[in-house]
């Protein structure tokens, strides 16, 4: 546990000591929420029958924490290129502790980005009750774990930082649309519906909307599945990603 805490706290420290990353993490989601959410609300809000600022907030919140935790895991790639990862791998802790520590650390980092976003949503008058805000905490935590596990699978497929950047553009961009981050996906062509159902981000975003829209009239217009089904899908994906990702990563590290 000490080793996991050390690996995790290093990621949190790194996050707070990187001004460029801090600025990008806070400014980008806020800009999307205000600009895109505001524009969509003005043009489509009335015909859609629900508030697009709230819709964009929940989508961007899910996207940000999922991508942040997944992206953070790939810092093991840059660690490997600077031999820092090697210094971890020659220590007597298990590879699993390293992986769990990384996921925990990046989860904490992602949660640090979620808190000001929720505060900003309140400023933008997204209707959230205190209970919903409190419930978003543990929900975001679960979403981060899925993102971290997803990042681990991607990490095992990468060879260097360049391939990491390319693969992330290829993997994440389609998911933004397939998972309904910015626009509804309740009706999709059958072939896109298949990809959408395979996207872990879909369940992450939908679970957040389950919480944020609970008890409201537009719930059924916005939310795709009930919370239980989303949780089941996320738990299943988390287990698969962790087992496959850890096994592939450990094997590749020791058997180059």
């Amino acid at each position, binding site marked *: 546990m*000490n080793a996991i805490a*050390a690996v995790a706290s*290093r990621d949190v420290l790194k996050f707070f000591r990187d001004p460029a990353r801090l600025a990008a993490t806070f400014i980008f989601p806020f800009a999307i929420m205000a600009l895109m959410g505001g524009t969509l609300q003005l043009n489509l809000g009335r015909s859609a029958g629900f508030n697009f600022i709230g819709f964009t907030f929940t989508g961007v919140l899910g996207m940000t924490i999922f991508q942040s935790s997944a992206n953070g895991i790939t810092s093991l790639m840059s660690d490997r290129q600077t*031999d820092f990862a090697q210094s971890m791998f*020659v220590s007597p802790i298990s590879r699993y502790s390293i992986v769990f520590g990384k996921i925990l650390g990046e989860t904490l980092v992602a949660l640090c980005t979620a808190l000001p976003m929720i505060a900003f949503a309140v400023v933008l008058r997204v209707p959230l009750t205190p209970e919903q805000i409190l419930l978003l905490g543990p929900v975001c935590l679960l979403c981060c774990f899925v993102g971290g596990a997803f990042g681990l699978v991607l990490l095992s497929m990468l060879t260097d930082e360049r391939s990491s950047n390319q693969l992330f553009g290829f993997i994440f961009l389609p998911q933004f649309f397939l998972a309904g981050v910015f626009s509804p996906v309740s009706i999709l062509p059958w072939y896109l519906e298949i990809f959408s159902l395979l996207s872990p981000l879909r369940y992450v975003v939908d679970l957040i909307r389950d919480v944020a829209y609970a008890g409201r009239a537009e719930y059924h217009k916005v939310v795709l599945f009930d919370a239980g089904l989303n949780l089941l899908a996320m738990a299943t994906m988390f287990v698969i990603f962790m087992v496959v990702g850890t096994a592939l990563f450990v094997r590749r590290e020791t058997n*180059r």
Partner: protein
Amino acid sequence: MKDLVKRYRKASINAVDGVSFDVRAGEFFALLGPNGAGKTTTISILTTTLTPTAGVVKIAGYDARREAAQVRRQVGIIFQTPSLDLNLSGEENIRFHAILYGLYPYRPAYRLMPGEYRRQVLELAGVLGMAEEVFRPVKKLSGGMKRKLEIIRGLLHRPRILFLDEPTAGLDAASRRNLWEYLRRVRAEYDVTILLTTHNLDEAEQADRICILDHGKVVALGTPAEVKSQLLEEHLILDAADRDQLRTELRRLEVDFQETGHFEVHLKGRSAQQVLRGLKTELTVLRTHSPTLEDAYLRILAGE
């Protein structure tokens, strides 16, 4: 290490090809070889970060493949390229390492760490002359200081064997000299076995024994003196105003010599004194040439 073989995936040749050697406790052992000789691959296998294709490796009695965790407790390593986290301070890097090795429980700040940890950090930083710098951000430290910091980190868990993978690469002459001075002190104070990889012959010459690798194979093994004597021997450099007379005398003494500018006389078991006693010609040049490790190394790599 016995019959070690490593072939990387998709490679057509072995990076390490049947290497065998042993290192005694407390010894300073140098692995020498040109780039691509297999030095780093060998050290990666010895430190359990790489799995061998074949062969047996035992470190402090533990099998590197089956008992990797025990092996990792016995070794410290200083990598060829810096392996410090530049976002952390020197002490934070050390603390991170100490916790990974299970030496101390996790604490988020230096002042919250146990007194024993703080004493150990200050002691090692004092030995290496960086008592103040150890608390500075790593990105603000010089290359030499970073290397010292890695040594502190590598010694914190009191390893029995310290692996140094080209530790002076990228350092200026003054930093190199300082580093070796500190390593000698560390070796004396902490009684560790040192296994060094290098292509710096001056560094290797200070080792108790050296192993020269080329194309993944051992091409020479022994003390620096043994390796030199296996391949080269001392010779005399002579010259005289009357070169014809000197040539005649050398032929009469039946010594092997070459005229490469001066007369290069190969002693082949004779002493220099014996040869000189037989010469009447007045000499204008007289000196002995003791082969260096570099001479031997270059000859080995040339395949002579």
